[in-house]
């Protein structure tokens, strides 16, 4: 039987000099889910995502993806969209696609060009000349064009207009497959609640709730968004 467990965090702690960003986090995530990672600013959402993608090292604890500790094997199957633009600005979109294709075996070039076309982005444009919004779209295209096992999207709908937000959610849904899991971190729950299976609530570096969206609605008689506002009322 195929192992459905995709991601496991065991006692993961991350200390920064000034504060504890994650506090002994235990978490198991299966394949085929779309998961909302929710919490106020500074609750540890970005830290967790960066730990899984391997650009942060935990202070203690173990993270595995497909049973492998974070490393080359996990980086092959994890597709990460950071909350910032990280692409070399002197490159053309075409060059970056070639770059991704060179380094990721699971990168689907046709899918990338298809999505660029649908968004009217010229592959010969340089990133330097693009607006921030367009750059973010290019990054999303790159990340979603990989046939990965785990997609980590950090605040993908943060500062985008409603049309772009719908496009992003649409892209996530149409790329869904039952072997892959998508983790979306956000504090704008209302917009994405309907696309989520499960939600994880983080507060001050601890997991305060892990539940399915319908469970919350069934048991609490309110949307996740409403619940979130209650739990994190400040």
């Amino acid at each position, binding site marked *: 039987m195929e192992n459905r467990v995709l991601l496991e965090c065991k006692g993961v702690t991350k200390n920064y000099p000034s504060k504890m960003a994650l506090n002994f986090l235990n978490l198991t995530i299966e394949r085929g889910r779309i998961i909302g990672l929710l919490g106020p600013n500074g609750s540890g959402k970005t830290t967790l995502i960066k730990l899984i*993608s391997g650009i942060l*090292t935990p202070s203690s604890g173990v993270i595995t993806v497909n049973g492998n500790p974070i490393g080359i*094997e996990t*980086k092959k199957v994890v597709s990460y969209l950071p909350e910032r*633009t990280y692409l*070399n600005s002197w490159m053309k979109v075409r060059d970056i696609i070639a770059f991704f294709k*060179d380094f990721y075996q699971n990168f689907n070039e046709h899918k990338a060009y298809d999505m660029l076309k649908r968004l009217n982005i010229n592959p010969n444009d340089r990133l330097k000349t693009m607006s921030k919004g367009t750059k973010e779209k290019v990054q999303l295209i790159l990340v979603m064009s990989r046939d990965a096992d785990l997609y980590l999207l950090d605040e993908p709908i943060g500062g985008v207009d409603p049309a772009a937000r719908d496009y992003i959610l649409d892209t996530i849904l149409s790329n869904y497959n039952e072997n892959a899991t998508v983790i979306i971190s956000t504090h704008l729950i209302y917009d994405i609640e309907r696309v989520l299976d499960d939600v994880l609530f983080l507060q001050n570096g601890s997991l305060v709730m892990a539940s399915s969206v319908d469970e919350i609605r069934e048991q609490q008689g309110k949307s996740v968004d409403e619940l979130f506002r209650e739990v994190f009322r400040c």
Partner: protein
Amino acid sequence: MLGKLLKYETKATARWFLPMYGGILLFALFNKLFMLFNFSDMDVHGIPVFFQSILGIVQAMTVFLYVMIIVATFALTFFIMLQRFYKNLLGDEGYLMFTLPVDASSHIWSKLLVSVFWTVCSVIVTILSVIVMAAYPEMFQDFALFCEKAFQVLFTQTGLNATAFFIEFVLLVLITLFTGNLMFYASISVGHTRGKHRVLYAFVAYIVFYMIQQIITSVVIVVAGMVLDTNYWTDLMMDTAPTTLIHIIMIFSILYNVVAGIVYYLITNYVLSKKLNLE
């Protein structure tokens, strides 16, 4: 994967160096053209003094610019070496580089090899530009003659093994380049392990590394001096030809740099693979 990294690293840096190299060679050519004209001759042909002095100024300018471009190129070599490591790996672009399925050592080697490559290229281009300026029909014969003379003075007369010395020299220069770069990488990496003031800590780390190297060198010299002072060694030294001593010093310097380089490499690799914290 290292091959792919090298390809992109070369691409990313070539757009800085190739224009500089073009500039060096172009200005060398200008200088050569100006040298071919002899302005005092022109006076006879009735060119006004005023025009002549302008030409003189232009000539001085091209010489000045030529020198400046060379200086700038070497400054750039240094700056790009730091910038590619600090910004491309440990800055925002590191988000891309460290999510590639590539291990930290490949990242280090790609940065290192390409940096050394450009340093060597800069030296070669500078030499080429000098050749361009100095070129005259019998240049190569004369140069060969000069080499022969120099060879005689340096090697035949002293009995130094030319091939061995040449290999040692090239090795030493190359390894010093590698170790020098790695020393900067290790300093930046040590700085990276701190939460705040990473650049400041990188400076401190560099100074500390430098001092440790100085101390080790001094200790080695003192110890060597003490050991060599004993009767047995003094007798042995008397019998040893000074050329052998040169070889010993060269080989020792190479080994010393290799060891230092390995230590810096290990520090860098440890930080990038075990202590990475991109903010």
